[in-house]
């Protein structure tokens, strides 16, 4: 069993995706590009953009998600993490690539087949105020998936909704109430109950706690963890909150401008980040301990995240990277298994020299190594 992202994107992977032993979900070179127009004769005539403009929100992501794990997907706003989550469920249409689940490619299913599979894949949204229909009762909201997939009707459906409400820590009496009668945390629980209604395998949790108060965040994280244990759920937990990600995740994938830049075990990536962006990201997290804060050396990055419209050439991080050299502007780094089960995309490090601080200035050991090593271990 191997759960790492693989290098070669063109090979047909995922023989046993969704079966015992294999990953639950395998994402292969997934791309989501949004065309913003421009570049046509018409644009030139009316003074539009002379070049075609494309937002490469997700640009070639390859990743496996193991059954029962929580994979934390972290990155700053605009890095494409939500788009990736939505593309997996086909809520946003992928431009190319595969999403393998039970030997089927979700990215290319259509109609009834897609709907059949989607039942097992659910999502919890960030904003508990916008993701519940204000004109439906809690019973209708949580019961709707049961109806859609014809899982229960009438009394049985009501019974099931009440059970679901109790599962997420709400009173079964709430069934006739409307969303506006609840607080943010309670609404998020309703959203979770709705996702659970169809007994899914896999849930994309898209910033599920970002809109909540600190004390309520802990409640929702604990609830998600309990449900995972009880129902053997697999989560893709998307967040910009590095502390929450650290807490809930087994593995963490870091995204920057549409690409994964580092994937590793959660404890490892926080203790020993390898890729410069991850290093900066982790050093930027404020620690709730004044003693630690006083001693910490913080890496403060220059500038902002560049626009995802026509992003920088080469390594997309080179414009802000304190370690960037000329080659970084030219070569697109691949995810390489620098240490066992620890993947990073940076040409300035390699298996022999995993720590960028120790690499000779101007050297790019990753370039030499990528010619010789093969990543066929899938």
């Amino acid at each position, binding site marked *: 069993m191997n759960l790492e992202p693989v290098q070669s994107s063109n090979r047909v992977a995922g023989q046993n995706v969704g079966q015992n032993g294999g990953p639950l979900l395998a994402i292969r070179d997934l791309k989501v590009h949004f065309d913003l127009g421009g570049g046509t004769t018409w644009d030139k005539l009316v003074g539009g953009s002379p070049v075609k403009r494309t937002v490469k929100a997700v640009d070639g992501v390859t990743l496996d998600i193991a059954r029962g794990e929580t994979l934390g997907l972290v990155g700053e706003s605009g890095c494409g993490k939500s788009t990736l989550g939505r593309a997996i469920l086909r809520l946003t249409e992928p431009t190319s690539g595969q999403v393998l689940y039970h030997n089927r490619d979700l990215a290319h299913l259509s109609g009834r087949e897609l709907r059949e599979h989607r039942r097992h894949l659910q999502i919890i949204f960030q904003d508990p105020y916008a993701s519940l229909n204000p004109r439906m009762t809690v019973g209708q909201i949580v019961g709707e998936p049961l109806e859609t997939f014809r899982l229960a009707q009438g009394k049985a459906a009501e019974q099931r909704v009440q059970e679901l409400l109790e599962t997420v820590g709400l009173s079964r009496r709430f069934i006739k109430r409307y969303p506006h009668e609840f607080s943010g945390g309670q609404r998020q629980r309703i959203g979770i109950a709705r996702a659970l209604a169809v007994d899914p395998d896999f849930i994309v949790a898209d910033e599920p706690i970002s809109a909540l108060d*600190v*004390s309520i965040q802990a409640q929702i994280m604990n609830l998600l963890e309990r449900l995972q244990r009880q129902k053997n759920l697999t989560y893709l937990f998307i967040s910009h909150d590095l502390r*929450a990600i650290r807490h809930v995740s087994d593995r963490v994938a870091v995204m920057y401008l549409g690409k994964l830049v580092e994937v590793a075990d959660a404890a490892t990536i926080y203790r020993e980040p390898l890729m410069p962006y991850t290093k900066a*990201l982790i050093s930027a997290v404020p620690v*709730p301990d004044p003693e630690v804060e006083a001693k910490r050396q913080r890496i403060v990055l220059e500038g902002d995240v560049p626009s995802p419209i026509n992003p920088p050439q080469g390594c997309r991080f080179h414009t802000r990277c304190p370690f960037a050299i000329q080659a970084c502007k030219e070569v697109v780094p691949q995810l390489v298994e620098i240490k066992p089960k620890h993947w990073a995309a940076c040409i300035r490090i390699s298996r022999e020299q995993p720590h960028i601080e120790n690499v000779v200035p101007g050297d790019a050991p990753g370039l030499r190594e990528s010619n010789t090593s093969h990543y066929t271990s899938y």
Partner: protein
Amino acid sequence: MSSSNGNLLEIKDLRTYFELEEGTVKAVDGISFELKRGETLGIVGESGSGKSVTNLSIIRLIPSPPGKIVSGEIIFDGQDLLLLPESEVRKIRGRRIAMIFQDPMTSLNPFMKISGQLMEMTQLHLGYDSTRAYEHAVKMLETVGIPDARARVENYPHEFSGGMRQRVMIAMALSCEPELLIADEPTTALDVTIQAQILELIKGLKEQTGTSVILITHDLGVVAGMTDHLIVMYAGKVFEQAPTRELFAVPSNPYTKGLLRSVPDPLTEQGALYQIPGLPPDVAHLPPGCPFAPRCDRVQQICREEYPPFVQLNRDHHSLCHFAREIYNESVAERNVVPT
């Protein structure tokens, strides 16, 4: 100029209430604190705890009606702001007390160039002519680390990113070299790497100018590295007040302890996260005893019946709890057991 005891700001028993249909909301209910020159004070609390209303009260920006500062004193540099006429307050607001808000997207005028918005400050408060104000605007943008400031000053707010807009806000706030800067959740809308930039910037500027800062946030991590003193608010009351290091080392209130334990520490391994049960209080309908009693894990009968005392634990450390002394002793004992 400063008052005899070295305090730039003294808040005494401030009460700000809102008269709403469903009753009187005691958003801020009897809080007191002091801020010395050059110090940074952190105010931590969840939504509805009264932390923002406290600061809007200080600069007299409470919308009235429905809001009203019912009683208390706000002594800024020896003067009670609550006794001053509006025209005098205006001379202080923006000039001597400046404020940065949470949302840099909505705090700038979208129809005005950055130059105009920055010049307004110095022209109004310091009487600069337009040439001088313009030069000052450019200088301020440079100070807050905006590259190519002379060109950027001619841009409109929408041409800046979120982090850059927050820098513009800081530039604007610091234009008149205020003695007090109030930053209300200055980094909440920003990404972590940008948050780090802004916090470093505020820290650096504070060291250069000696401005006192009040930093309002819900993030215990942010205050840990930034502040000298800390106030924890809940339901319009100060629940705990102490020097920052002391508050983190020996928290002496069940709410503070719960809050500290419910934040995952990214540097350590930990099991299940502690959770404070229940919901933040409805400030319009508070229970008779301690407002935190319904959520407290060590609640006793007395907590439900009697309002807790504000116990002084040592010179600078206070906690609003019937059992403050016991919890303080427990925290001290815990700290001695666990080597840090």
